[in-house]
């Protein structure tokens, strides 16, 4: 049978097969293994105990840890705040570089720069910028009179989380900008022209044309930003390493400490599974709110 003879449904399955094979062929084992480990007592420091099946014991142990709830709280706060800011700023930047003005390509390039720098390196840059002795942020703020003496941005529990958020917003807003910008390009210009004829002002255009037509771009940007924010690791690890006194420790950071430092694979996997469930729940809510329709009209 040739590819041109296929019925619509046959073609549909054939086209989707390679992606599914790729995704599930590679990812299924790690995912199920994580779940499997989370149900066993695998603590590599005490191997003489073997790796017995313990049911939900690891989950119960983690739920009793204040550290877990603290990490969950930090992760939720971080995700909510940084993603909101990124969506807002990313949207604004996209609308901006979508306009025509002199030097637009320079602005476009600079908007992208933060995202092109590897996370570990941007973490290091921000560490340096935040430094109280040789950090340039304190220097500028002192010169401008915003502060009267150097502030320890990442060494202070009241500012550390915000410092991490600022660095993350700086780094990942371009992701949102790019996606929204691409969405803006798909809106037919004719729609604006006819709206203008009908006497709509800019704001009405934005509410009635731009926003509705960008719905799916916004959803995709939002979903994948939340996914990434909820798993945040590298940036925090480099900037504060979870401090001061665990006030910036995220779920992934906690999982990392349990897995790679404490060698407690059972409990570390529980935290991973809980992270997964958290993202799942949030994504589900968003998909419901946006009510994505996949059926054919």
């Amino acid at each position: 049978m040739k590819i041109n003879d296929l019925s619509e449904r046959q073609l549909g399955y054939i086209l989707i097969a390679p992606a599914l094979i790729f995704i599930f062929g590679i990812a299924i084992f790690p995912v199920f293994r994580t779940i499997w480990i989370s149900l066993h007592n695998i603590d590599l420091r005490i191997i003489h105990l073997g790796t017995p099946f313990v049911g939900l014991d690891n989950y119960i142990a983690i739920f009793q840890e204040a550290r877990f709830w603290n990490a969950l709280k930090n992760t939720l706060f971080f995700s909510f705040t940084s993603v909101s800011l990124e969506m807002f700023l990313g949207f604004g930047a996209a609308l901006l570089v979508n306009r025509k003005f002199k030097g637009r390509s320079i602005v476009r390039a600079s908007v992208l720069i933060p995202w092109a720098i590897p996370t570990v390196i941007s973490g290091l840059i921000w560490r340096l910028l935040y430094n109280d002795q040789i950090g340039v942020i304190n220097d500028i703020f002192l010169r401008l009179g915003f502060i009267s003496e150097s502030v320890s941005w990442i060494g202070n529990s009241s500012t550390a989380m915000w410092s991490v958020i600022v660095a993350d917003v700086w780094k990942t807003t371009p992701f949102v900008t790019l996606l929204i910008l691409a969405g803006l390009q798909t809106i037919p210009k004719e729609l604006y022209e006819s709206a203008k004829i009908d006497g709509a002002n800019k704001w009405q255009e934005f509410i009635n044309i731009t926003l509705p037509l960008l719905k799916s771009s916004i959803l995709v940007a939002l979903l994948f930003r939340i996914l990434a924010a909820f798993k945040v690791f590298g940036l925090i690890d480099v900037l504060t390493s979870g401090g001061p006194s665990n006030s910036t420790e995220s779920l992934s950071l906690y999982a990392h400490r349990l897995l790679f430092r404490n060698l407690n694979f059972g409990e570390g996997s529980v935290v991973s599974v809980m992270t997964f469930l958290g993202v799942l729940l949030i994504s589900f809510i968003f998909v419901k709110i946006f009510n994505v329709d996949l059926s054919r009209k």
Partner: protein
Amino acid sequence: MRLLNKYIKKILFGLFLVVFTGIITFPFLWKFLMSIKPDSELYSIPIKWIPSSISFQRYVNILTTTSLPTYIKNSLIVATTTTLICIIIGSMAAYSLARLDIRGKKIILSLVLAISMFPAISIVSPLFLILRDFGLLNSYLGLIIPYTTFALPLTIFILTSFFRTIPFELEEAARVDGATYFQAFIKIILPLVTPGMFTTAILVFIRSWNEYLFALTFNMSDSMRTVPVGLTMFQGEFAVPWGDISAATIIVTIPLIIGVLIFQRRIISGLTAGSVKG
């Protein structure tokens, strides 16, 4: 009066642009400054904004004496291949999900999304076992395969949303003209989503280019190392040689930005070329 208003607006807009780009690029520009400062002024207290002399010697040293060029080559190979595979496989899947009548779309999309929700930290150890058993450690494929797997959900979601913006009448018209479903996909619909494909390509490329944890764990030999891990190799146990790290970061970032700009042109021009005329 109105003219004056317009001028003020223009000036304000220009000012806003300068401040806006200034803030965004500041950390990057600061890095650039550090890369050309003399060693003795890197950390001067109080901060030295204007260096007493500048030198591009660090760039020369890094390009000639370190393995950074090898890292760049490796990253280019891995990221480009990943992007190509993602776009090809992803657009096929997205087309099917967006425009063809197949069952279980919601379930497929949810599962695909769920896969990318597990923290990489817990995925890395089991993946290591798989790759080792297939002899793929210290190889390009050993990175391309997992990168593709975990970039596909993003690819499929973006492309699906793009495919859905195209009116369904187009295909129907093609079908009436005697085209098969496959021909309609390749010849009519695919060209219309080029902006989406280029956007996705940029996102997937940068994502793969910047990936750290897998690259660190799967490719341990120096000849197979990629850029992000390579950049952290500049650090010692305690020492952070800022001058060198800055210069190396600039070296790897500038071409990336230029590449993205060229790609972005394609997004715009690709659109105007195939814009949807209803």
